[in-house]
């Protein structure tokens, strides 16, 4: 099972939103990381078949998804960033409607809906109108519809926006459980959403892929570039202007523990620390914002 993105581009009048992206998605969880405007949503909409590429091709097991048509959509699940629903629908109405739209037989859909309501803790609110639900519950409803047809390819665009920390953890666990023998692509700018569950990641910037690989490999690229030291409050304001700071922790006596990214340590008392995916993200995307600060 492979979803191949082959030299994919999308051009608008004045902008190239996705620029010659190639990527082979295999089973497992993939993180698609990038700042807002990096081209993630455009790429995802092309993978979903909502948007036609200006150039390039997307193939599922070697066949162009445009030719697969309904057969591709049959094995596809999608939760977009802005998830629209009908205000008059209850949770169960909505899932029944989506099950019919996905072509599930009535009996199968009933069983599947019950299972999903249970696993997503929505059983109690099944007859409640979606519009009355909390942001997290609405999002879970969206996840439920995406999983209804047990998709082989599941695309989630910013799936945790609006969720509280506990719901994020629950969501991560659910996806991790679901991902076996499936391609799951999670697009996000929140690194922690994918850091622990994505086996592989693709990082996008300016419509292009700037890094692709297994999480550990990507993180290792940052080895020797992540440092930590203690500085004073006064120094901090200068550092903020000149250094790429990944984290700050205020201590007693106006001291601050600073985690920063640099090719070389800034001072003698800096020590190298274990890099994280977030460091790579910051390394790549801070360049875009502030130029090379090394």
């Amino acid at each position: 099972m492979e979803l191949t993105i082959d030299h994919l581009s999308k051009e608008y009048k004045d902008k190239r939103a996705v620029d010659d992206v190639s990527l082979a998605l295999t089973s497992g969880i993939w993180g698609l990381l990038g700042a807002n405007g990096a081209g993630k949503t455009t790429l995802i909409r092309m993978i979903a078949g909502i948007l036609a590429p200006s150039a390039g091709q997307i193939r599922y097991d070697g066949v162009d998804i445009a030719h697969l048509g309904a057969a591709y959509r049959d094995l596809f699940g999608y939760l977009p960033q802005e998830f629209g629903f009908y205000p008059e629908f209850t949770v169960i109405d909505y899932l029944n409607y989506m099950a019919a739209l996905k072509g599930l037989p009535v009996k199968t859909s009933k069983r599947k809906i019950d299972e999903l309501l249970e696993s997503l803790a929505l059983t109690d609110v099944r007859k409640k109108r979606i519009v009355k639900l909390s942001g997290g519950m609405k999002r879970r409803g969206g996840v439920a519809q995406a999983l209804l047809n047990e998709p082989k390819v599941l695309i989630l665009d910013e799936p945790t926006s609006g969720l509280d920390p506990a719901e994020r953890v629950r969501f991560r666990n659910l996806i991790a459980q679901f991902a076996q023998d499936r391609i799951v692509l999670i697009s996000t700018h929140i690194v922690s959403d994918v850091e622990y569950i994505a086996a592989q990641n693709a990082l996008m910037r300016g419509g292009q892929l700037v890094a692709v690989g297994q999480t550990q490999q990507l993180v290792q690229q940052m080895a020797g570039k992540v440092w930590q030291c203690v500085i004073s409050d006064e120094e901090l304001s200068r550092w903020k202007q000149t250094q790429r700071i990944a984290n700050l922790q205020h201590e007693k006596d106006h001291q601050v523990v600073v985690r920063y990214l640099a090719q070389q340590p800034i001072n003698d008392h800096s020590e190298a620390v274990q890099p994280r995916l977030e460091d790579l993200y910051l390394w790549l995307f801070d360049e875009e914002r502030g130029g090379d600060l090394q």
Partner: protein
Amino acid sequence: MTLWFLEVKRLLKTRFISVIMLGILCLSAWMAYLPVSYVQYAYQDAQGQSVIVTGREALQKIKETRGDQLITVTPEFLANALLQYQEALAQFGNDEGILFDMPDYEYSRLIAPIRNVVNRMREVYSDSKSGLAPNATALSVEDAQNFYVQCRLHLQELMMMEQENHPNARQTALRLYQQVEMPFLIYPGVTTNSVDYETLVIFLVAFGAVLIAATTFSADYQSGADDIQRCCQKGRYTLAFVRLSAVMIILALLFIISLAMHLIISNSLFGWEGTKMSLQILYSAVTFLPLNLGGEQLLTALAGLLSLLAVVASTLWISSQCKSNVSALAVALTVFLAPMIIYIMSNSVAFANWAQCLFPAGSLGLQNAFAYTLWGFQFLHLGNFSVFVPFAIIGIAIVEIPLFIGLTAHSYVKRQ
């Protein structure tokens, strides 16, 4: 079918749609009563005072005094009516044939029952060049005896004026007029108001249908629901046709129920025998379609249904092209109301006729209503080919329905 039923259920559960539908049903029923409320009857009470009654009471009095049955307009009936009218004129009118100073109860007793037939006589004996109708005093009993012969002659003259360069149109009119049942039939109490209100109900349903249909696709584009739907197995042509058919069937049923309710109430109040009244007595003696009032009601309803479906299909196409509900509603309402404005403002009869036929809503307006074309003499001309406007309206609507359905489905599926 599961998806179709769920779509219908979804639409019916939408508050905006259910409120509009309920409003239309209530207004349709109310508008069936309005023409009755305008009926007036005056009589003299025991003290010799003039009493005017309206509404159902007036209808009741009319039926009591004039009889509750169809009256055949024989030449003898016409002659008697003419004499009665002339006597009334002699007593209460002037030399120009205008009645004045006539007590209301005398008008209800002497003039109202025969006003239509006398006017039809004046119409067919109007001057062939100027079109001016003679005074009732200028007509004779002999004219009354020759009324039906004169009807045919008058139609020939009129068609020569209206369609001088189109012999096909003239022949069609005369051929159809041969099938008109003569002598004509009249029924006490029936007025043209009931036809006007049928037209108004059709306009109202169509207006509501545009409001409902305009947001069918655009609402999902706006909310983002469309993104998920079109990624589903049945999210393309199947969903497009499910949505199209669900909206069109719901609105067609709304139209049928509204019109049926309106006509049943209206005809029950006026009396079902009234549906057999000749159209030629109500509007023009030379209306060449062989229809009675009931036939006119059914044909208007059928044409209204076809036009409504064409309007709904074209509105769905607009909806499938618009990103937001506001733009979809604005464009759909403009397209819906434009033919009415064009019709009113147009100086060219031919242009107005084409606009009336080509726009899906061309015959759903108030002045440009389909019913009014039935007793008109307008034809569409394309070279030597001429077609009577109401027939063209029906034919073009039948073509437009599948055309706009196809365009909508294509536009929805290809949207990015």
